[in-house]
């Protein structure tokens, strides 16, 4: 009674390693498909006993793609543990760095990782279906994409001394001011960068029009949507309260990040090193929700910058005012957020406090516990620490962005496999679509595997008794 198993490993053009197994019934139909996150690093345990002040340097090594998220979340948690609230200018500067990261990380994903599927096609030759193939096909666009990422990385380097794993945020503030010259440097490239982001949105819209059939049959399903908002329920990336809306778009709950344990819990499956967070009152798996660009734009009522705000309004009409359920629209949402971050940088640079030297609060009011939370490019990130008065950590709990999307990624893989992969004549392009289901979420397996690291995708064909019949690894 042979069910077959197909394995795709590694899943490429995602950050990290994963594998997908597709279980095929005798009649050629798909029994199920699973995404296995295949790595574990153990940061939560090995940070025990470390000094609190080391955390903004240790935890970025969870992920070199969004190191700033961990750097800042660690600093925010440490602010609370020590009761040292940063002065306003320090928060503005941290936020500036954070938006630099969103631009580099999401911009890179759009153009360099997912872009080849959109610009060259899902069925293009795998040997050229990558950023180099894109460079050959459209060198001008590729150079723009490189410059978009460079802009974000330079904002980070100006503030933190280097692009990856900088040293900038410390408990109570930051360690460097922004000089007038540095401010000018950032401003000089701003308009060009904005144009590239708008071009990205334009490309996405055109692609969506030409491929709406694919978009409508590619992992479309309801979930809740989760992210931070400001007091007006607008999109907030650095500091806000958590808002969760249900499938219909109505608010289910709003809570302060410090209270996360009352609202979220994590489920474990023995076939993946990535845990599955869910909304506690609804239980597992009904309480599953999505985070990241699609989750955020569905969850927030509006965006407080003019250009991105306008595009967000258009985004909101895609499903007649209801949450947008199409997984491929993650790419669209991602570019709107990049535009938002560029506009935010512009606003921050106009703020009279941005070049202030009041960047560090040194007065301590020890609390012993803190939760640092922000919107990383891929979703809401929580760092929760407890420490003794001599500043040694006694407890570390991390819930990373990609984790929240674990249910959605698994569900998407299962749906896309059922929709596209047929037992007879499995093609590389079909398998690539299954991978694209994962890729759309822009999973950061480095983050996911703090606890978890690598993401190769394998498709295995498994029979009913669990025997692997065939493994496809597409080389």
């Amino acid at each position, binding site marked *: 009674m042979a069910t077959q198993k197909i394995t795709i490993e*590694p899943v*490429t*053009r995602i950050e*990290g*390693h994963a*594998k997908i197994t597709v279980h095929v019934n005798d009649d050629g139909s798909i029994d199920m498909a*699973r995404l*296995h996150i*295949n*790595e*574990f*690093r*153990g940061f*939560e*345990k*090995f*940070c*025990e006993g470390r000094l609190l002040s080391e955390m903004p340097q*240790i935890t970025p*090594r*969870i992920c*070199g*793609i969004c190191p700033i998220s961990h750097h800042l979340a660690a600093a925010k948690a440490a602010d609370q543990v020590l009761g040292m609230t940063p002065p306003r200018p320090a928060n503005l500067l941290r936020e500036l760095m954070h938006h630099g990261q969103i631009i580099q990380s999401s911009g*890179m994903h759009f153009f*360099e*990782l997912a872009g080849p599927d959109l610009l060259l096609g899902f069925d293009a030759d795998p040997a050229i*279906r*990558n950023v180099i193939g894109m*460079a050959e096909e459209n060198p001008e666009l*590729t150079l723009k994409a*490189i410059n978009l*990422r460079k802009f974000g*990385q330079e904002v980070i380097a100006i503030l933190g001394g280097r*692009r*990856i*794993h900088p040293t900038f945020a410390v408990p109570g503030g930051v360690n460097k001011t922004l000089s007038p010259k540095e401010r000018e440097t950032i401003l000089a490239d701003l308009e060009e960068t904005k144009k590239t982001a708008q071009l990205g949105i334009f490309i996405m819209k055109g692609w969506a029009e030409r491929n709406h059939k694919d978009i409508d049959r590619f992992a479309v399903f309801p979930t809740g949507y989760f992210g931070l908002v400001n007091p007006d329920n607008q999109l907030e990336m650095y500091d806000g309260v958590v808002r969760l809306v249900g499938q219909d778009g109505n608010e289910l709950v709003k809570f302060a990040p410090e209270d996360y*344990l009352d609202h979220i*819990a*994590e*489920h*474990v499956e*023995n*076939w*993946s*090193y990535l*845990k599955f*967070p869910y909304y506690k009152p609804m239980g*597992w798996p009904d309480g599953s929700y999505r985070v990241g660009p699609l989750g955020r734009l569905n969850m927030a009522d509006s965006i407080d910058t003019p250009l991105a705000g306008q595009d967000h309004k258009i985004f909101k009409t895609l499903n007649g005012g209801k949450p947008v359920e199409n997984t491929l629209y993650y790419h669209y949402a991602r570019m709107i957020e990049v535009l938002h971050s560029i506009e935010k940088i512009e606003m921050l640079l106009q703020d009279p406090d941005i070049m202030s030297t009041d960047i560090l609060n040194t007065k301590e009011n020890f609390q012993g516990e803190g939760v640092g939370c922000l919107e990383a490019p891929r979703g809401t990130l929580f760092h*929760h620490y407890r420490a003794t008065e001599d500043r040694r950590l006694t*407890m570390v709990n991390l*819930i990373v962005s990609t984790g929240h999307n674990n249910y959605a990624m698994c569900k998407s893989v299962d749906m896309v496999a059922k929709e596209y992969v047929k037992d007879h004549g499995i093609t590389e392009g079909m398998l690539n679509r299954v991978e694209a289901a994962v890729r759309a979420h822009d999973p*950061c397996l*480095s983050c996911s595997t703090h*606890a978890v*690291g*690598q993401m*190769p995708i394998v498709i*295995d064909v498994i029979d009913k008794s669990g025997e692997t019949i065939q493994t496809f690894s*597409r*080389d």
Partner: protein
Amino acid sequence: MAKPKVSSDWCAGCSGCHMSFLDMDERLLELVNLADIRATPFTDLKHPDEDGVQIGIIEGGINNLTHIEVIKRMRERSKYLVAFGDCAVFGGVPAMRNFFDLQETLRYAYIDTISTDESGKIPNDPEVAVMTRVQAISEVVKVDVFLPGCPPSADAIFYTLSELAKGRMPKLTGDLLNWH
């Protein structure tokens, strides 16, 4: 003459070294003229060419049995193997796990963390990798070029790869030899 082939992969690292590779910015386009970029995490080929590549690059150390396979395959198929970044060179931050008992570390992550519900268990399905002590890659295979840094700078990466592509052994000195 055909351009030398380059392949890369990542193991127990943070992807930061590969991000520093992208930080070569417009020099990436130059590199494409010097070398033929084959299987990497950014491209869609899954494994280094069976008939071999000139330069094989590994980010991250070893922390599970799958990594050992990945690294051995890369070694077999590469003329020059590059240990890319501190994690590959000597284990780096992930090697802090070695200070703790591995089972205890897994137990904490999947059972004892305060947000984990009663379904907590250590994943042990045959599909998931078996964890090991964290090691530098030179503990398992022969390494030809050590490129340290967390991550190595884009300049150091560009220099190393362009030297190797031209058939010369890179000599990392001064700013290019970076231990932080």
